[in-house]
């Protein structure tokens, strides 16, 4: 039997820097620290107010022009090697504040980043899960298990986590892109059809896109543990292509009219509506006019 005692690992010390946040991530960090249930303690961590004593740096907020010098000086005080963790999409991409004259984002242009925890703000469970991954990076090997405690299914039923896109329900109306404050959504005209991309590191998890989406092609999932290594930063995307099909009358490539939209437009789906679905808008018009003619003569 293995009896020798393993000496406990020294506690890792966390240092927090707020570069100009809306205070959402900071208030959630304070809750994460205060509420033992979230399990930060079990990771063998403690917070320090002294940057020179820290091993891990947690950064919140978009880097503002006016805080930049102070923040970078403070960051430099933390001795190397250190692990840098970005909390919330603000430091990761600029979040809601991207392309302002007063914000210099993303933060990885200024400091070497190890881990990103997306969210706006991420829930404490996501913060802890992310920090656990950072601890693993620091110590090597497996990170200690984190269990944020049991969660009742009904309590997280509405959780706004990672957004999911279903190309088969998309009509390409681009309303999601129009209402998205994060600039997270992009459409590209591609050979195969209309390309859709959503960047989880720019997303503010506001659900505005799914609210205005006429067909339910976009919807929030309950997936909240989105922490990832810096190397994975630009792979955090949701992609899809709406393929173009030829119009059944004239052959022009067109975006298919999805059943979700047909159900909205017509009281009952019939063979006639199914035929309309395969027509481009011009042929549809022609056909409708013929219909009118038939009726009036």
């Amino acid at each position, binding site marked *: 039997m293995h009896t020798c005692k393993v000496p406990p690992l020294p506690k890792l010390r966390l240092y927090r820097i707020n570069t100009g946040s809306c205070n959402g991530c900071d208030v959630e960090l304070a809750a994460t620290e205060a509420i033992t249930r979230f399990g930060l303690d079990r990771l063998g961590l403690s917070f320090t107010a002294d940057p020179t004593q820290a091993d891990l740096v947690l950064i919140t907020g978009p880097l503002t022009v006016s805080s930049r010098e102070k923040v970078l000086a403070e960051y430099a005080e933390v001795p190397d090697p250190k692990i840098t963790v970005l909390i919330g999409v603000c430091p990761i991409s600029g979040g809601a504040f991207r392309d302002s004259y007063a914000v210099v984002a993303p933060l990885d242009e200024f400091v070497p980043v190890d881990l990103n925890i997306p969210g706006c703000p991420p829930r404490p469970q996501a913060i802890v899960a992310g920090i656990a991954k950072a601890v693993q990076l620091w110590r090597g090997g497996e990170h200690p298990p984190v269990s944020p405690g049991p969660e009742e299914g009904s309590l997280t*039923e509405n959780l706004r986590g990672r957004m999911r896109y279903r190309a088969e329900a998309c009509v390409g109306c681009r309303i999601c892109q129009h209402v998205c404050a994060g600039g997270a959504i992009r459409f590209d005209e591609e050979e195969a059809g209309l390309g859709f991309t959503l960047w989880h590191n720019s997303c*503010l998890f506001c659900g*505005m896109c799914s609210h205005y989406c006429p067909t339910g092609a976009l919807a929030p999932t309950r997936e909240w543990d989105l922490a990832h290594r810096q190397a994975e930063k630009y792979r955090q995307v949701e992609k899809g292509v709406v393929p173009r099909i030829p119009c059944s009358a004239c052959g022009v490539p067109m975006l298919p009219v999805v059943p979700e939209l047909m159900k909205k437009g017509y009281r009952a789906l019939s063979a006639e509506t199914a035929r309309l679905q395969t027509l481009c808008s011009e042929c549809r018009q022609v056909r409708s006019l013929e219909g009118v003619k038939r009726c009036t003569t």
Partner: protein
Amino acid sequence: MSRTVITLGPRQLGLEEPMYFRVQTAGDRVAGLEVLAGQVHRGLEHLTLKRNFYQNITLLERLCSLCSNSHPSTFCTALEELAGMVVPPRAEYLRAVADEIKRIASHLFNCAVVAHIVGEHALFRRVMELRETVQQTKEAIYGNRMDLAANCIGGVRYDLDAGRVGYLKSQLEGLKAPLEELYRVFADDPALAAATVGVGVLTREQAQAFGVVGPVARAAGIDYDVREKSPYGAYDRLSFQVAVQAAGDVRARALVRLVEARQAVSLIEQCLDQLPEGPVALMSFPEIPAGEVIAKSEAPRGELIYYLRTDGTDLPVRLKWRVPSYPNWAALGEMLKGEPVSRIPLIVNSIDPCISCTDR
């Protein structure tokens, strides 16, 4: 007496947000104060002009996360006024529910911070635990613990079915006794009283002269609450008594917040009991004509004013705020004058300052 000037940062001030003070001292007392603001300036006024109304709803929710619901709901109210939209009654009630639930969480966070600063760590944890009930409730109903995403132009983006109403009611029930108890602790506990009574006083006259708002004003005897003076949304159908204290000190401010947290519970219950049937929002994409409008509301920190000018497109031409923390910051000099330097963090936090609102 030795006179010096010291600079205090967020860590010394016990603030979650970066803010710096230059303090003139005479001995160990505060003689003068200069607030060095701007660290959290994100160019919000400029950004809002580059974003359309829909994007601005989400952006404004991130102007400050502690009053995050007050911003989009006041902004939507301004747009609805311009468009001549009459928001469905059910939506008015649901907006009030969202506002009040945020008020409880905001006030409790401040109480926790005050407890922490005076060294009552067990109390700090207790308040944070109590606040967790509110955080969980918000997450269960709205999908996020801070940013509710409750508002849209013409109403709200969420509804409460019978199951959720029941859940919300039982969560509220669970808050009542602990909130009562917390009030008694802040009112009667000798150690807390020693640390907070007669500390950081702002007299009624000073409060008036500085035009302070919210719990800071009401703690100095000023009977002003937008929800009561110029009711908006559902507030003209809800009843509550404006929470007023006379002492104008740190304790009075905490007591006002605790009374308001209890009242918020009752206000939400009234909303749930009166909740009218019907739609939760009007049509999705209303036309917003050219015009100019002011909308205001009682945010957790006090009167929040929105000025909006539009030109018929879906981008604002001008959007400006008078946030509650702004006048309250200015009065801080009065509250700190002659106080020991060691009390600065407590007094600063007793006005529950919001830096992201003020610096924006």
